[in-house]
């Protein structure tokens, strides 16, 4: 079985200049948690997930802090939750993860769960040999393949 036999073809995608609120609205409406970013020719540029939306909230230096489990009250930092300056100015291009794992539509289906486990990701954008986005494969698609004997 190939990736293209199982993947979702009708996918939601955004352009690089899509605003952060628009992305949030898409997440709410479609009940999804990640969206691929493509250019005018449908070439995959990156991916925005809820993690990236929340990253706006967390100051840049946080990953350098050795440990902050013992701090409960974030004091003045708390104000960030109420208003991030320029929040509405963020666009998909600023938020997206560029270095993403993709899978070829002709790859064997087994490669998808292997990649998901290795890179701890939930969904993989599927590309054709020209690197154009043709679909997305999620864990649910794989479960369906596993329990329904593949093609339904």
């Amino acid at each position: 079985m190939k990736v293209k036999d199982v993947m979702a073809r009708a996918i939601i995608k955004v352009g690089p200049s899509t605003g952060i609120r628009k992305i949030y609205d898409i997440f709410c409406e479609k009940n999804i948690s990640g969206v691929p970013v493509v250019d005018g020719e449908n070439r995959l540029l990156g991916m925005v997930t809820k993690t990236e939306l929340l990253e706006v909230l967390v100051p840049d230096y946080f990953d350098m802090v050795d440990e902050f489990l013992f701090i409960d009250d974030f004091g003045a930092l708390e104000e960030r939750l109420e208003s991030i300056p320029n929040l509405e100015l963020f666009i998909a291009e600023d938020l997206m993860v560029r270095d993403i794992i993709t899978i070829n539509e002709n790859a064997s289906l087994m490669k998808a769960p292997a990649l998901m486990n290795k890179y701890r990701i939930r969904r993989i954008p599927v590309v054709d040999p020209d690197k154009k986005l043709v679909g997305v494969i999620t864990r649910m698609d794989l479960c369906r393949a596993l329990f329904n004997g593949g093609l339904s």
Partner: protein
Amino acid sequence: MMEAYITAGAIFIVTFYAILSGKFDRSIASFAGAMAMVVAGIALGFYSQEAAFGMIDFNVMGLLLGMMVIVSVCKKTGFFSYVAIKTVKASGGSPLRLMIMLGCITAFLSMALDNVTTIILIIPITILVCDILGINPLPMIVSEIVLSNIGGVGTMIGDPPNMMIASSAGFSFNDFIVHLFPIVLVAMALSFVVLIIVFKKDICKRPKDFRPILDIDERQAIKDVKSLRKVIFALSIVFALFIAQKKFGLHHSFIALLGAGVVLVLVRPKIEEVIKDVEWPVLIFFASLFVLIGGLEHSGILNIIAKQVVRLASLNYTLAKVSLLWISGISSALVGAIPFTTSMLPVIKYVGVLGQETGSLWWVLALGVGFGGCGTPIGTMAGVVGLSMSERTRTPIDFKTWLKTATIVMLVNLIFVTLLIKII
């Protein structure tokens, strides 16, 4: 002879250029330079494999390695966060006091431990605490970087240049405490004066709410109390032996490696992790610089420089010392403290061979390179790392801020040492 001078000199200059240009990794650049020097030396007959190997100061290498192992175990205990929170609480929320207290803590930690490690562990928690308080972290970060550089000058194990000078000059741990520590204390005070003047606007604004900090239980920051006690025990042994060094005739490297051994046996950490934490690129950089400069020394160029130094010293010793101080300070700011010190070691040694008294020249060199390191962000590794960390805050250290603070601190401290030059 002439061929040897030109070849060795050219390899030295090209290597230094490669190290400073930032286009190459400094460890790889210095390693390549060292290898080129040995090849040229064998071909032209001024340097041999045995001589090159003999140039590596294993007393310095062992001291560095031993301290790196101790620090590797220490930094995983959460001790630095504990100290930082404790300090913030003690400051009572006054940014002025916070800047001075964090600076002092960083200086004293840098005297005992490696500066870069101190900076990497203390700056992030400082920024976080400042954000919680809603105050500008910039004065604290600058204070920590500057004071880490200055504090390191105060002890033999505070800075790599001091370790090299100790080994070359045969100074003990206590010699450094007697000669440099008091000067460093005054230099710290002078630095705070500069920092207070520059940051007076930022540090008079009190935080709106100090309670979140008081609510933190800093004891919870310590992840592993047992290991921390063991590390402190090992460090006490190390310091006790350093103080009694002359009495027992112990080498610096032996004491540090013994401390590392005690830590490893008591804490029994995963050895792979400790090995990974050891900064091998730094050790390669040192070993390569020793071999590179050794080639320069064997070619005879450094002797010519040394003869000039002696000539100047015999004419006017005070002037010679002042020149050495400022040349060391400015060179250390421009090319980095470690490469410059490595180059000066054989020169001053040879000056001694020529019959000139060198005791105070070593101290002047240590003070010059130590205080000079503040002059530019590239002067020391603590500066490089601290600056890149500050770039991830809303108020990064820009060139102007550095010039107004750290560079002025360097000038003030070098002027201060110049005034003292007769008694050093």
